[in-house]
């Protein structure tokens, strides 16, 4: 848990302290009537003036705070303890306990809270002593629900299952693992209940159903001052102010607690669109349909900018398949997103250029880029479930892609969408177009994504791990489909993946990325048979071999972009490293036409027999 913002904490603290110390402040008796001085203005004896029967307003305010906070604290605590216990039991023990506690809470929740309070007050009669159980009852179901939901979400976590598998007892799991995990939400609920109880107490007292006169209470004070507010508004305004300030600081504390408990909520930086760097004057491969030149992506962090993608260059020709392969943290996905201007809010392209035909995409304004996206340049993503909007029909989402670029009527766009779904191999396309994403299987969803991407016959498709979430037999279908579509439309394909066998299967050329850099780049047949970088070689050896022997592991892990080594990024894990490797970052050198490597020892690897390649 992070630290709680101290300002609301201090405000609530001061109010609580005042309420605690009232008896020792030497204030006038809050119930002593002084009719001759009724509605008198502020004076030295009565700093805030006197009320409609001459009682001291300041004293009544502070005593009112005392009773209000006492009622709120006691009722919230009772509700919290009993409610959390019931919720945890219901959630963890299940069965009959679950039924009794949760259904009972549901029934109590059927009554609007104020109505519930009124009903109980009717039965038990008004008074502060009644208020506490009444309010506790009102807030009880909230705690039950919060605790129950928390337990349910924790109960099916694998680490709880692991403890069950270890034979750890239920009580121990509940105390050690479940309770700490629901502490945050319960704390938030507690501060909510406190603030709400202050409001409800004053409301009931205002109606004459809460604290009984002449005891001081903010609600009673406001109610009483109403009749004289036209002549002297001050006696009305003071309790209004006190009540508002108290609730305001309690609500602020509640937000602060929530912010401290909930790890989400750090606001991302505002997006900066254009980059100041100049267009690098490098010629790009003739006939390339897309060329990325020296692309660097930066993420601004409090500790300064980190660069998860550094000076990456590659290009794809029409009809060609380029694979970008790398492990997590290699920057392969960010590269793809940067091309289409779809980087997440925290990241921005810092340097380089992306040339699509004659156009430079990084400096293009959003409106022009939008006309390209989904038309000439399309992209599909890894998780077809989260990448499709769950609330719109598949057909509608394809129609949207069509109509974003072509002035078609809804009806003819729908017909086209159905035809596209049929083209990507979805059986019974006319009916499936009316399905929602959750009604399709993973493979069908990815087919629908592909249908959407090819809707406007793009010249280039960027596919970011499109088969990673799919089963092998379905992956084979999707790879087959992509190959067919490529052949049909002469479309270029950039295939981003972590799986070398998939690269071998579909790509013409491959870019190997490691820790944000291109380490090797060349034709698939060459790179898979004679890799010229130890990382590529090691990666090939870490895939399980055909003969059933164990794969060879690469020791260590990928460095984080904020902790890059001084020299070659792979040097710390490389068995072939020399001192020179750690001295300076090696440049990307051309070893053969169309084959680049970032290893200073590439000439040695080139002399090795085929299929051995660089040592690892």
């Amino acid at each position: 848990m992070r630290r709680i913002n101290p300002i609301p904490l201090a405000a609530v603290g001061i109010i609580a302290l005042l309420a605690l110390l009232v008896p020792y402040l030497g204030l006038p008796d809050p119930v002593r009537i002084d009719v001759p001085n009724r509605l008198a203005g502020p004076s030295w004896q009565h700093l805030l003036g006197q009320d409609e029967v001459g009682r001291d307003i300041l004293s009544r305010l502070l005593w009112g705070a005392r009773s209000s906070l006492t009622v709120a604290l006691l009722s919230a605590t009772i509700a919290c303890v009993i409610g959390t216990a019931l919720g945890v039991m219901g959630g963890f023990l299940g069965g009959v306990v679950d039924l009794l506690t949760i259904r009972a809470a549901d029934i109590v929740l059927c009554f609007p809270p104020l109505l519930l309070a009124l009903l109980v007050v009717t039965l038990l009669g008004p008074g502060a002593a009644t208020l506490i159980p009444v309010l506790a009852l009102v807030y009880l179901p909230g705690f039950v629900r919060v605790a129950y939901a928390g337990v349910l979400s924790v109960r099916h976590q694998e680490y709880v299952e692991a403890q069950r598998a270890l034979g750890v007892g239920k009580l121990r799991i509940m105390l050690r693992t479940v309770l700490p995990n629901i502490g945050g939400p319960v704390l938030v609920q507690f501060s909510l209940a406190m603030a709400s109880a202050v409001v409800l107490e004053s409301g009931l007292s205002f109606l004459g159903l809460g604290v009984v006169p002449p005891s001081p209470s903010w609600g009673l004070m406001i109610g009483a001052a109403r009749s004289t507010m036209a002549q002297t508004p001050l006696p009305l305004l003071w309790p209004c102010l006190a009540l508002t300030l108290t609730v305001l600081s309690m609500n602020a504390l509640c937000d602060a607690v929530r912010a401290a408990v909930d790890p989400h909520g750090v606001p991302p930086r505002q997006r900066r669109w254009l980059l100041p760097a100049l267009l690098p004057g490098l010629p790009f491969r003739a006939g390339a349909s897309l060329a990325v030149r020296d692309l660097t992506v930066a993420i601004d962090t409090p500790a300064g900018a980190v660069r998860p993608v550094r000076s990456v260059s590659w290009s794809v020709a029409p009809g060609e398949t380029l694979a970008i392969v790398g492990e997590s943290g290699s920057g392969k996905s960010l590269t793809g997103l940067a091309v289409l201007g779809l980087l997440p809010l925290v990241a921005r392209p810092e340097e380089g250029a992306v040339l699509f035909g004659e156009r430079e995409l990084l400096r293009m304004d959003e409106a022009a880029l939008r006309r390209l996206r989904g038309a000439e340049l399309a992209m599909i993503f890894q998780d077809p479930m989260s990448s499709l909007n769950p609330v719109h029909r598949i057909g509608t989402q394809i129609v949207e892609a069509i109509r974003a670029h072509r002035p078609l009527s809804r009806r003819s766009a729908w017909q086209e969408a159905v035809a596209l779904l049929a083209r990507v191999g979805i059986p019974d396309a006319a009916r499936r177009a009316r399905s929602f994403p959750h009604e399709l299987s993973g493979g069908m969803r990815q087919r629908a994504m592909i249908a959407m991407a090819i809707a406007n016959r793009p010249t280039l498709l960027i596919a970011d791990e499109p088969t990673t979430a799919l089963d092998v037999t379905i992956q084979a279908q999707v790879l087959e489909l992509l190959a067919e579509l490529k052949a049909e439309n002469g479309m270029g394909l950039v295939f981003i993946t972590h799986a070398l066998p998939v690269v071998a299967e579909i790509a013409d050329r491959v870019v190997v990325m490691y820790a944000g850099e291109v380490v090797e780049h060349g034709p698939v047949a060459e790179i898979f048979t004679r890799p010229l970088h130890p990382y590529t070689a090691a990666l090939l050896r870490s895939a399980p071999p055909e003969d059933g022997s164990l794969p060879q592991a690469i020791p260590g892990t990928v460095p984080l972009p904020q902790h890059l080594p001084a020299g070659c990024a792979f040097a710390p894990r490389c068995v072939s490293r020399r001192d020179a490797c750690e001295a300076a970052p090696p440049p990307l050198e051309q070893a053969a036409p169309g084959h680049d490597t970032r290893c200073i020892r590439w000439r040695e690897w080139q002399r090795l027999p085929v299929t051995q390649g660089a040592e690892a």
Partner: protein
Amino acid sequence: MWVLRRIGVALVLVWIVASVVFLAIRLVPGDPAEIMLSQGGVSPDAAVVAELRDQLGLDRSIWDQYRANFQGLLSGDLGVSLTDQASVSGQVFARLPRTLELIAVAALVSVLTGIPLGLLAALRRGGWFDRLAMGLAGLSLSVPVFVVGTLLVLVFAQWLALLPAGGFTPFRTDPTRHVAQVLMPAITIASSLAPVLFGMTRAAVIDVITRDHVRTARAKGVAPAGVVLRHVLRNALIPVVTVLALHLGTLLGGTVLVEYVFNYPGLSGLLVDAVNARDYPMVQGVVLVISVLFVALNLTMDLVYGVLDPRVRRA
């Protein structure tokens, strides 16, 4: 199937609520008839108590009472008020539309302000508009409704004399006055509801905007307005509607304070009077009607939810 199941559950809930209300009144210690008659601390005459017990049917067994009570309920008979012998259902249904009107106007005002402002604040997250709107919403949320109402009366009725301080005029008698009298209480209620919708919309939009499907929409080349309306706001409305439903439900009984401040003769005014007069049949009737409405509202919202989020229809 899904709809039928929800309706079934709702009916069971109404039955349970009615039973709880019935039992709560009967099972609390003390004789209801005696409590009703012992206003002012004087012990009531035994004969009068017996007469009231007979009238309320308290002398019969609890099971008989329960059955009679439910037979009455099924035929729409909620009993007779103890204070003026008027029919409870007549009273309740005369006042119900007024409360519903109040809530409807308040909800409309809240939806029309809270949701657009929440969307705008989220899209300009961290900017001056966002901070200003957040501050105002936080403040508005922290002032209890009866304080807002009282202050509105003080400013607009007493000092500026722009609007009537309260009361109620039927629309047919004087439409202008009717609207003027509904306006202030409705705005008072909206002052607590609108910031809730604002906050929920803002949070939901901020959440949805980072989801993958929004990126897909952008990758398709959909125009910004289309992305915001069809892919961000449309999805963000799902939790907002849930919150709206929850709060509308609370308002059914929660207008008590506002009706009291503005002297608005609605349903909850009836309830407060009945509570103060220990008019048990009336209390029972009002609570029951409100609970039924509350359950019905939740049911409607469940159905709306199913329209908004096709995924729940599977359940």
